């Protein structure tokens, strides 16, 4: 299992901007192939969604992907098994909601993640106030808990979040849920700046970043970018691993020019 922070720092030191695509585990028969395809197309790490019935932080595209995955009977263990089976030469982080973690048992699911080769977890509904019981088991199992900083986070919270974050710090580009947007909004640079004041960990921007141009724009200030809905939409539309790879390739080329 790759150490997410070490891996991302090493790539950053080589002058590379970090590309972290997101796709939903279990959303189609060939999601494991899509996972391998986006890595081959230039991902530095991948976020794999574990579908939850009530995804509070997600917009319509990721909701739809989650619904499809659940309708196919996808369970959290199956997603982790799918990651374990896939060829993943870069770190994999799972993104899901806390109830699935709590229900599985912190220790059991942390160990299961580690044995599946999952190096990190992103749990958007688990703020620092509530993170203790999970973080203890995740740390023990070697699973990095990536934390989010929002445009609304005041400086004292940013400091506490950066202190507790592992892997990288996830800068939320805008107030709102995941989903494609025509413009980036104006918050991202300020959020990245507030994080930089507290830590030298890698900082990646996500939520609403939809196009190669927007990815390049955020990479001018951040170390990397997370792109979810724009990729998931292409998969929902039936593009398959090829369309996913083509889109991720276009993101790669755009941020390599930053």
């Amino acid at each position: 299992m790759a150490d997410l922070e070490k891996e991302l720092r090493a790539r950053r030191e080589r002058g590379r901007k970090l590309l972290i695509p997101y796709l939903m585990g279990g959303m189609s028969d060939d999601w494991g192939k899509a996972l391998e395809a986006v890595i081959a197309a230039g991902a530095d790490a991948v976020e794999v969604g574990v579908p939850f019935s009530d995804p509070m932080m997600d917009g319509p595209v990721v909701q739809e992907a989650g619904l499809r995955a659940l309708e196919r009977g996808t369970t959290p263990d199956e997603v982790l098994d799918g990651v374990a089976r896939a060829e993943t030469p870069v770190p994999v982080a799972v993104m899901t909601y806390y109830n699935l973690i709590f229900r599985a048992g912190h220790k059991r699911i942390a160990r299961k993640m580690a044995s599946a080769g999952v190096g990190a977890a992103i749990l958007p509904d688990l703020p620092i106030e509530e993170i203790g019981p999970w973080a203890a088991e995740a740390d023990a199992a070697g699973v990095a808990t990536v934390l989010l900083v929002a445009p609304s986070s005041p400086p004292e919270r940013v400091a506490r979040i950066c202190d507790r974050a592992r892997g990288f710090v996830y800068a939320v580009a805008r107030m709102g849920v995941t989903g494609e947007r025509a413009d980036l909004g104006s918050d991202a640079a300020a959020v990245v700046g507030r994080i930089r004041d507290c830590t030298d960990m890698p900082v990646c921007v996500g939520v609403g970043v939809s196009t190669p141009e927007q990815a390049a724009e955020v990479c001018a200030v951040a170390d990397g970018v997370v792109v979810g809905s724009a990729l998931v939409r292409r998969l929902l539309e039936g593009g398959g691993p090829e369309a996913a790879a083509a889109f991720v390739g276009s993101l790669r080329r755009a941020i390599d020019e930053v």
Partner: protein
Amino acid sequence: MSRGDGDAGDDRGGDAGDRGSLMARPGPDGRFGEFGGRFVPESLMPACLELEKWFDDAWSDPAFRSELDGLLRHYGGRPTPVTECRRLSERLRIRLLLKREDLAHTGSHKLNNVVGQALLTKRMGKTRMIAETGAGQHGVASATAAALFGLECTVFMGEVDTKRQELNVFRMELLGAEVRSVISGSRTLKDAVNEAMREWVACVETTHYCLGSVMGPHPFPYMVRQLQSVVGAEARAQCRERLAGSDPDVVVACVGGGSNAAGTFAGFVDTPARLIGVEAAGGAAVTNGVPGVLHGMYSRLLQDEVGQIEEAQSISAGLDYPGLGPEHAHLASIGRAEYSSATDDEVLDAFRLLSRTEGIIPALESAHALAWVARNAGTAALPHGSTVLVTLSGRGDKDVAQVREILAGRRDG
């Protein structure tokens, strides 16, 4: 506290069994015993923390309290009466009293909460309220308060509920609110909450989320209980007046999220009265739920073995919720309140029973509490001669069309 890995529940703090501190302010982490907390995205955490400060400040401000009391009195129609049910009492051989929240403005207890939150919205300098609604009672109440205070209002309502409560949709629109039909998930109350939360993340700077029940992240469960505690405080005094200074033997209220029950119980938690919460049989989070996290709170939830939330099923849109407020989960776990459920058939019977014996058409939600009483009168759970207070949380006008359809369907089928 400890959670997960099968070790939950071994640390409930020192208040178990201490009636004096029951239904007091939760700790700084927003917990009632082990339940509650704040499980929201970081984007919303600052808003939750600020809301707590704003509410504490307002609640301890005599000017705020007197403005709220004045509004509830002169606009909302409080105090609502307690009615003694003579014919139904005779039939069930108990003494049945009803706390008449159906007589409050907008036809339910929901106004108590929204007037408070609308005042708070103004105090915070926000210009818009959003709300979720199931049956439409909270949506109508929110739209009403928004109209009264000149606030913008958007109400999220599951598509299933917009269909079964069509008239309430029109009512909200008439009051100037925008109603957004929610087509995600099961398209009922739980999904309306999801959608309202998503909207709140995007608009938190200008918008207050006026949550309708004692659920969600701290401070909502505490704040909504405080705002509804007027129900219990009035009822306690009214019961003592009628019962020669004593309290009822049993206090019963329906529970979806549980706001009318929480407000009622707050008035009786330090008396010897038994407290009974009645859930919908298809949404019985205490009986059939297990601890988990949804909508910002750690509570008891209907969920499958991996933690996917299950859809509640109830004739009453207002109780069609797979969880309940964290303070109820706590009261259940320490045994101070008991939770039971009523089936749709029992509820329909109780709906007709109260209509015919007392000339009061109850909301289907409230009929759950009556169904428990009707089922248990004369048994060990509710011996003949018991004195019972039921909070009639709302009036049934909104349900008449739906009940007519169901009864017609049964005659034809």
